[in-house]
């Protein structure tokens, strides 16, 4: 239909007016809110980790042992809360505050493994445990080896 004329727009509005209107209806930036939430949730998780480490120190572990045991305990808590479906709720609120601590690392292990259980215990659970943990271990361990080699030749 080449001769069809375009219908006139129902509302006439200048580009400036449109801009102002669009800005009014754009959701308020969640930037600051995200940062505050990440700070509080991340801070609280780390403070809890410190409480657990202090308890391990209190029962006679060396600082190194206590720190290791504290990390293991936090990983246990992170996995358990993911299994119970609680950690996802913490994650929705805390953003990076729940992702960066080891509890978030544990969450990234349990979450896909649980999801893919129907694909079996080897190709499902066994493989999907490493969806995120795999890359983290690959880059972390590779970095540590390169650093060790550099330390060897620089000293």
């Amino acid at each position: 239909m080449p001769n069809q004329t375009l219908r006139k727009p129902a509302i006439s509005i200048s580009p400036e007016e449109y801009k102002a209107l669009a800005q009014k209806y754009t959701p308020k930036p969640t930037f600051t809110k995200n940062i505050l939430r990440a700070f509080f949730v991340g801070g609280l998780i780390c403070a809890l980790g410190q409480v657990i480490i202090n308890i391990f120190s209190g029962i006679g572990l060396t600082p190194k042992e206590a720190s290791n045991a504290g990390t293991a305990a936090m990983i246990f808590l992170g996995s358990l809360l993911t299994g119970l479906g609680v950690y996802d709720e913490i994650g929705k609120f805390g953003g990076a505050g729940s992702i960066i601590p080891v509890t978030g690392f544990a969450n990234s292990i349990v979450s896909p493994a649980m999801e893919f259980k129907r694909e079996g215990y080897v190709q499902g659970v066994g493989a999907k445990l490493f969806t995120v943990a795999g890359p983290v271990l690959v880059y972390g361990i590779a970095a540590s080896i390169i650093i060790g080699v550099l330390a060897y030749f620089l000293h």
Partner: protein
Amino acid sequence: MFHLIFPAFIVGGLICVIGQLMMDLTKPSFTPAHVLVSFVTGGAVLGALGVYEPLVKFAGAGATIPLSGFGYSLAKGSIEAVEKRGLIGALSGGVEATAVGIAAAVFFGYLMSVTFNPKG
């Protein structure tokens, strides 16, 4: 009992804010997995440069619980093992120093994945 809890809260919180900025200021294709990989690698580099150690002394869990602390431990273990045993230490030191965390993550992760089912 209250040793280091406040510094752990502040430093741990600030480290997580860096992660939040990385997520909010990058494209959506930069996933949480990319953030975690960056933190481990970054922590290893800062650990090797000796920058992360003072943070661990000052803030305890505030520096060791975030994943950058895992990178720091990997780097520290590797360097210390190289000093003791030579070049072979570069292969053994990192994993040795972080063995508890890696084994705990694999074992507890497996246990919980098998025990629980996803909600909904």
